[in-house]
């Protein structure tokens, strides 16, 4: 709910739900907050039931801090560990059926645009690797091909964590997991490549041990999805339980995986670059001034 179009009569604001007042008075609603201020304001996601050392939770928390317009953001997800945390955030979350997140987000985005026109109502899909690359694959790809204007974020822990550690399409080849007793027999699915082929305007990989970078890619992805087209972020969010990573080594693992197969990558379409430069003043995408002519 935006503070721009709901102004409470002084004296009545105290009758608003406590959670909402907290978000306005001590949280990010109606003002800008950044990851560097963590600890100094009330966050959208505070309590969660996730395992100790869960990198996915850290990522979700950072992502929510990074939403450019949290009071007008709606998240969509599916079954998996992630939704246990996302559903406790103080912004709306759609938890529908198995693998339906990009279909739901398509209808939701179009419906909101019918009602609110260009007034930003950001829709962000956050789902796991199994929910997105396996059971929700068709809807994910088709939403991209249809150029649906919302952001898709994959919480890639390379395993079905919530059901107890089974192989997913995003698991690496040869990895032994439940349902892959002899090791996975095919490669990790190239969802990044498919996102580009399907026409995403922005595609990025990120790991959670660099909060500023997470903030940067989330902001760009959400802004670009408002007007240019679908955006995709693939985040490595390890499962320290199924991959037996000691709690104090989770960040080390993220660093190692980043160096191994999750190097930061970012694809920004030409149109998206111009849009970020024109609308939001992103200097990195502004046209370079013509080099001064060499003195003759």
């Amino acid at each position: 709910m935006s503070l721009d179009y709901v102004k409470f009569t002084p004296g009545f604001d105290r009758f608003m739900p406590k959670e909402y007042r907290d978000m306005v008075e001590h949280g990010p609603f109606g003002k800008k907050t950044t990851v560097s201020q963590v600890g100094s304001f009330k966050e959208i996601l505070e309590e969660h039931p996730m395992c100790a050392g869960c990198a996915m939770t850290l990522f979700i928390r950072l992502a929510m801090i990074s939403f450019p317009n949290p009071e007008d953001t709606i998240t969509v997800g599916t079954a998996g560990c992630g939704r246990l945390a996302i559903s406790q955030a103080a912004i709306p979350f759609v938890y529908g059926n198995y693998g339906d997140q990009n279909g739901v987000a398509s209808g939701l985005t179009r419906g909101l645009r019918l009602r609110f026109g260009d007034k930003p109502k950001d829709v962000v899909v956050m789902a796991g690797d199994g929910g997105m690359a396996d059971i929700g694959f068709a809807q994910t790809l088709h939403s991209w091909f249809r150029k649906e204007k919302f952001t898709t974020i994959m919480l890639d822990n390379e395993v079905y964590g919530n059901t107890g550690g089974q192989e997913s399409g995003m698991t690496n080849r040869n990895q032994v997991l439940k349902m892959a007793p002899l090791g996975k027999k095919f490669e990790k699915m190239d969802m990044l490549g498919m996102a580009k082929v399907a026409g995403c305007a922005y595609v990025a990989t990120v790991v959670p041990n660099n909060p500023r970078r997470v903030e940067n890619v989330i902001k760009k992805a959400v802004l670009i999805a408002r007007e240019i087209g679908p955006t995709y972020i693939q985040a490595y969010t390890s499962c320290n339980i199924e991959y037996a990573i000691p709690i104090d080594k989770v960040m080390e693992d993220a660093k190692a995986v980043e160096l191994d197969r999750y190097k930061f990558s970012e694809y920004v379409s030409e149109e998206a670059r111009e849009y970020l430069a024109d609308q939001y003043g992103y200097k990195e995408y502004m046209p370079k001034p013509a080099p001064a002519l060499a003195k003759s």
Partner: protein
Amino acid sequence: MSEALEPEVKTNPQGDPITSTATADAPAAQSGRKDPHAEAKKQKVVSPEYMFFEAPREREFITGSECAKEAVRRSNVDLSIAYPITPQSETMQLIGVLYGEGYVKEYYRGEEEYGVMSAIAGGSRAGVRCFTATAGPGTLRGIEPIASWPGHRLPAVAMFTCRVVNAPLAIQPDNIEIAYLLNCGMIVFHSENQQDLFDYLMKAFIISEKNDVTLPVGVCCDGFFVTHARGYCSMPDREFKLPARDPWRGSVPVLDAENPPARLSRDAPVQKSNFMAYNIHAVWQQEVWAAVERSRKYIDLYMGGLLEAENVEGAEVILIASGSAAAQAREAVRACKEKSINTGLIKIRSLRPFPTNELRKLCANAKLIVIPEFNYVGWLAKDVAAAIYGYSKAKIVAGPHVYGGMSMPVEMIVDEVEGGLTGKKSSTVPSSDIMGTDIDPAAVSHFMQNI
């Protein structure tokens, strides 16, 4: 620009102008063409009561698919999502024509039915009025999201043009898919003919969005018999449309971030296995079915009741049917009259909620009840038997059944009536299943095994 100078308008086989390539925003003068949305923009909002009961109607001889199109044209639909499947495809492509003409605001062809039904859920959550249609295997492919619509309290209207679902794959009429829809928690209507389809669809939008209902409505019809055949349909003028969905007044907040945020779950264990989880799920189910119950008064108000009884008072035999079987049963009533058998007809309009009390009253004194159906399993006979058990001593014949695309000759129904009364099994049709009091226990046991 005079009419004579306008470029020739291309039409589809139904005679509708193809305008979907025209842009909505192009000013007429600038493009030199007639604004394709001009007519839609002129539509006037009228109350449901005026639309349903007072507006003058004109009769047209059109197919069921065209009836669905005309109903949607007058229903102020925001978002419609299409995916082809026989015998539904014509309906949703005609809705595409309405989109081109501006009567439907948003429309696209989805990836398959799971995706379509998910996106309808998204659209309904956004607070807009949604419509889609499917058939047979499409219904079953989409049933996971469809079955979750009622729990999420998503008003929407889906039309099911019933067809075969089992192997071997076939496109023929057979309404077995209704058996699956009956247990989803949605409201389910069954249209007998083109006129019903037109009326039920429009009324479905209004009933679906009533605050104390807030449920999806499935409007079923038997494929081909209704979708592809022409019938008379009386319709109010197309210059009228129903009031738009008003999500601000909804009893369940829509997900537009305009309400103070509600955390889906405050306590983590709610989504795990413990008492609170069981309790919450149980409460949701109770509330869904209570809402189904609360829709009765609106079905009475707008549709004239959950069923329609013809010549039932004092009748010895009652035929109970829904959908196309009701049309055949009506003919069978006439044929029985010629044989001096006093026969009445109960046509069931609403399968969920089910007219239990109405049936108990109407069937109290009947001797014989015959329930013809276009499916193998006899879902209607099961519901009728369960509803009137203990309230009627009638012998119940669950049949005749035709399925897989077979038609239902009126003689089959008459044979069952005569066989039911005399105890002599027909030699011309396969034997049906019988239940009721004062009959052979073996026959009852056979009935129970076969339904």
